[in-house]
């Protein structure tokens, strides 16, 4: 497992306490899990995602990520409607391990209140939280 200082934690995304990340992209926001989360879970074998059109509130469970070690629920960083899901994960869940901020994104949502982004952590706050 990686040392905390070796984690890939981009500056341009916001993080949650449950180790999801989110980033604005046009009208939508993209959601995935952080390098820390994928590293802790280990080899990911299945990603369960909601259907396009489903609506969730901030903090709602919207799916799960299953690795050879454990199954972990994933929680939506901000409220909104699912606009798109990463269908390539069905056949290639390992993309979450290989490229958690690019090819391994989970869902795109149409946020109902984009200002909720403001109460998420930036890189420094997230790293501080990880360091305890």
């Amino acid at each position, binding site marked *: 497992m990686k040392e905390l200082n070796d984690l890939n934690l981009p500056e341009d995304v916001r993080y949650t306490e449950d180790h999801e990340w989110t980033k604005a992209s046009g009208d939508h926001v993209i959601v995935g899990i952080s390098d820390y989360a994928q590293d802790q879970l280990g080899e990911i074998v*299945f990603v*369960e995602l909601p259907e396009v059109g*489903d609506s969730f509130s901030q903090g709602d469970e919207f799916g799960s990520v299953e690795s050879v070690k*454990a*199954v972990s629920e994933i929680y939506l960083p901000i409220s909104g409607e699912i606009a798109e899901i990463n269908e390539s994960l069905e056949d290639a869940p390992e993309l979450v391990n290989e490229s958690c901020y690019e090819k391994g994104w989970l869902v795109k949502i149409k946020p109902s209140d984009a200002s909720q982004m403001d109460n998420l952590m930036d890189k420094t706050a997230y790293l501080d939280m990880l360091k305890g």
Partner: protein
Amino acid sequence: MRYLPHTKEDIQSMLEVTGHKTLENLFDSIPQDLKSKNGINIPEAISEWDLNAHMEHLASDNIACRDYKCFIGAGSYDHYIPAIVPYLISRSEFMTAYTPYQPEISQGTLQGIYEFQTMVTHLLGMDIATASHYDGGTALAEAALISLRTHKTANTVAVSRLTHPSHRQIVDTYLRPTQFKVIEIPCTEDGITDLKALEAMEDLAGICVQSPNFLGNIEDLEKVRQIATDKKAMMVASFTEAMAYGLLKNPGSLGADIVAGEGQSLGISKSFGGPGLGLLAGTKKQMRNLPGRLIGKTTDVKGRPGYVLTLATREQHIRREKASSNICSNNGLCAMTAGIYMATVGKIGMRKIAQLNHNKAIYLKKTLIESGLTPAFDVPFFNEFVMKVPEGFDQMRRNLIEEQCIFAGLDLEPYYPELKGHYLFCATETVSKEDIDYLAKEVQS
């Protein structure tokens, strides 16, 4: 499990270790008023010889189908079981009711169940089958629950009135204490599910139709598929006679989302009604939703094939709060039996046996018509059908059981009051032409 009683010497040496004078002293901590004062009221011990005689006397009161000519199916079918089937399942490597708790060490059991699953998917035309459930009724209840879990808004499942009455009762027992609802799809005068009535039903998560239905009639599953699609409900096809799919188009090819049914016909003896074998199969889409467990094939580090518990039951291990069922057990031995049976008779054998069933049922129906009974429905059937009987048939049927060892059909009135005077008949490959002719002669007189 062995039962080895303790000798007086065993007890004495153990009491010395625990520091008690007598066996009574060992139980001193139990309050006096909770102890039975007069001991347990059971007879004195008897010799093995006497015990065997006693048990044989009790057993002689049973009516076993083996000694009778059985023209009843109704969910439990009299099929020939090749000698290799009981021989193989009696081997001590297989003789357990459970998937072993340290499964990967039991490669033979896992391989057997893997092959069972594969053959079930071929028989039913589905992508994926579980390693079994208790019986057809519990499998159907699980199928209904899958549809309810999957559907976002609807909380109702519709179950055909012509689904096996016991299966309907089990579904009802599962769902009654929950927030979910079961509604009954009525039947038509032709002895099939009333699909017009189904079309008028709203907000359904699942539609459960049995084919061949309890009256033996083959349902229009293609039409059920259309209705399920229109209503965005899951189509659940159920069955009690697995042998039918040796001949009929299987439910998978007709578009079923889930198939649930009873596998007793696949080499499992009737055993006075149980244990049965719950078969449950789905499309790949249902994979994560299926309860129970699934055995998979993989390779080890040296590239050799091996079998593993691919989808272990969540009800048993991690994440119990996300369990898809509250039952962790399966019918491992019966699944193994069915696997061995299917491997023994093979695809072509299954088709031949199924054809034999159908041919004999057609012959039985024809001879019963000649003997004065009236067919109740004019719908395609597999090996069961309903006949309207004349006055006095019931008494004659009772005489046939007592005097001739023949079961001439099942009275449908207790299950369907509207079918008073109607009997359900079945012919499998185990009845001969002579048996049928004999029955017809008796019925005629």
